[in-house]
């Protein structure tokens, strides 16, 4: 049984895991790249070791170095978080071969679910419904895929076999655009997973993305913690999640049916630890297996809020060989939780990534608000890693109360130095379709526009005009003043005039 855990990750999830370890009385070992010497996970951990230069390939993806550090520091276990090495079965195997505990599933389960082709085969064999698409073991050429496309039918999705998180995914409406999109998808997949293989899947329109959280211990107990609604996505990236799903709502029968199928899917690969089964749900409530994420999920906190179960602590307990302290019948969802992913992306400029130093930061606090973050005022947001700055989670008795609370929290959020997508979330919270729970996976891209939303909010151009004018005025005064001081010998108005021209 281990008493020291190495966290093979960075950012908010590394901090989240350090907190769980600390609250369990376990020592923590952080690893960091040269870009992260001052990162929060390095500051909060008991120990910290340098991995290498900023690029992931030279730092957070260096499984060999990480295992070496674990052994050197006397850590007994490694928690991979999400992303990076979390779903690399070879890494998990190497961890175990080094005599360390891997806080996650068996390498065989990761492998089985890692190749989406094989995964689809396995679970459908176990009687789990899957979305129609290309079957088999992935390695298909562009020509083969182009030939198979018509049978799958348009629109369809190109997905990376090694994929996850929307990387290497493209939607195709017509066969003509398919070759270009295949290239793009393979390129992105190659870059993200070092594996350019892709497969095809029918694009089910008007469907929702709903996932089920699973916990399984080493004693054969598998329970599900209910569902999460994840339909609000952009470029296949989740932006906002809620639990429960407004679509499932009070349909406890549907919830339990999806839960049972999820458990079955997990059992089909002898799953252990925390995992998530993603489903595509059609308006008639029929649902299909999409994929299984064999790791901790970004959006796990909303499930923690409504079930009262600390998923990360449970992961560690499971890895220590403990039995789950509860059964399926003990799991109950109460209240409503919503998570907004606050990204360093300028939602007023086509969600373009934004880097820079966080000059000022004020997080929302107060009743029912939780923020998970890996940054702080003074920290530099680099272009090397993903754009997630923090996760803003609210919890309240009902969905309506949760939405009002999220509005309040978003309004309080202050972050200077990088642009964020907070305005996007504010517009979503005001959207009538969102409030009514009427949205699917294409809502953000097809039925939502920042411009339109901005126009619909109670607008106040007069105030904006006054404030901008006062700032401009102050700046003019200050500059004029500086010039005066530095050039006493010449008349002010001339310099002032010149300065103003310079600055236009």
């Amino acid at each position, binding site marked *: 049984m281990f008493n020291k855990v190495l966290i093979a990750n960075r950012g908010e999830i590394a901090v989240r895991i350090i907190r769980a370890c600390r609250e369990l009385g376990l020592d923590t070992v952080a690893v960091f790249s040269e870009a992260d010497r001052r990162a929060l996970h390095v500051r909060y951990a008991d120990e910290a070791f340098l991995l290498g230069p900023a690029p992931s390939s030279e730092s957070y993806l260096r499984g060999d170095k990480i295992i070496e550090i674990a052994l050197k520091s006397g850590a007994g276990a490694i928690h991979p978080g999400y992303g990076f090495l979390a779903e690399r079965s070879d890494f998990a195997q190497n961890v175990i071969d080094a005599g360390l505990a891997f806080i996650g599933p068996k390498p065989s389960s990761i492998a089985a679910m890692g190749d989406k082709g094989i995964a689809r085969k396995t679970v459908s064999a176990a009687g789990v419904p899957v979305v129609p698409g290309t079957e088999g073991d992935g390695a298909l050429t562009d020509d083969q895929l182009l030939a198979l496309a018509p049978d799958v039918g348009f629109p369809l999705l190109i997905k990376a076999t090694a994929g996850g998180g929307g990387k290497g995914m493209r939607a195709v409406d017509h066969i003509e655009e398919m070759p270009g999109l295949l290239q793009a998808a393979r390129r992105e997949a190659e870059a993200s997973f070092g594996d350019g293989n892709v497969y095809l899947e029918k694009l089910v329109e008007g469907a929702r993305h709903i996932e089920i959280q699973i916990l399984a211990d080493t004693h054969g107990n598998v329970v599900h913690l209910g569902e999460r609604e994840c339909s609000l996505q952009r470029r296949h990236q989740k932006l906002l999640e809620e639990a429960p799903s407004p679509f499932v709502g009070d349909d406890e029968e549907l919830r339990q049916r999806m839960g049972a199928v999820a458990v079955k899917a997990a059992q089909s690969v002898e799953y252990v630890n925390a995992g998530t089964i993603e489903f595509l749900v059609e308006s008639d409530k029929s649902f299909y297996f999409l994929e299984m994420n064999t790791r901790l999920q970004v959006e796990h906190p909303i499930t923690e809020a409504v079930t009262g179960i600390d998923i990360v602590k449970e992961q560690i307990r499971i890895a220590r060989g403990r039995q789950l302290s509860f059964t399926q019948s003990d799991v109950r969802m109460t209240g409503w939780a919503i998570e907004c992913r606050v990204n360093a992306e300028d939602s007023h400029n086509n969600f373009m990534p934004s880097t820079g130093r966080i000059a000022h930061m004020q997080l929302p606090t107060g009743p029912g608000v939780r923020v998970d973050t890996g940054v702080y005022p003074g920290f530099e947001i680099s272009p090397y890693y993903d754009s997630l700055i923090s996760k803003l989670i609210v919890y309240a008795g009902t969905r309506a109360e949760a939405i009002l609370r999220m509005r309040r929290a978003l309004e309080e959020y202050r972050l*200077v130095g990088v642009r964020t997508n907070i305005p996007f979330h504010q517009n979503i919270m005001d959207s009538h379709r969102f409030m009514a729970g009427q949205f699917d996976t294409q809502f953000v891209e097809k039925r939502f526009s920042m411009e339109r939303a901005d126009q619909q909010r109670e607008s106040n151009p007069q105030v904006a005009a*006054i404030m901008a*004018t006062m700032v*401009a005025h102050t700046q003019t005064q200050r500059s004029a003043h500086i010039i005066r001081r530095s050039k006493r010998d010449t008349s002010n108005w001339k310099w002032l005039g010149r300065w103003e021209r310079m600055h236009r």
Partner: protein
Amino acid sequence: MKYITTIDDLQYTIEIIDNHQVIFDGVPYEVDFESVSGQPVFTLLVNGKSHEAYIYDDDDGGWEVLLKGALYPVAVVDEREHRLRAAFGSGPTQSGEYNLKAPMPGLVVSVLVKEGDQVEEGDVLLILESMKMQNELKSPRAGVVSRVNTKDGDHVERKHLMLSVN
């Protein structure tokens, strides 16, 4: 000092007496304007209403005001300058060349064109990766690639001129 302030098609005349008095389209207002701890976060009290906004310089003489989640592009010019512009038209006219500058620091995954290439509007010129996202940068119009200042694998800073279309 008196300013002409424009937001989209709205135009206001704002005279600033001091931090506590402005004349807005001829109507005087008592205001209380403060910056929050030296940050570009500003708080304004006017008629008791409390407003807070981020105000950014938009890099070409204008301002962006982020107020309660809504973004307002604001142009502020003083009276005299306004008259000048009215007289001589506003500033230099668009140059014929399109310069593709890096919208953010990142890694050039691949440059898809070379000097002399003919490109159509919407053609992907270059793929720039930042924060694990691959961003396809397209040509806003047809033309000939007149210059390429970067190559695959380059790390570019924000605003670095990567290539031009003429």
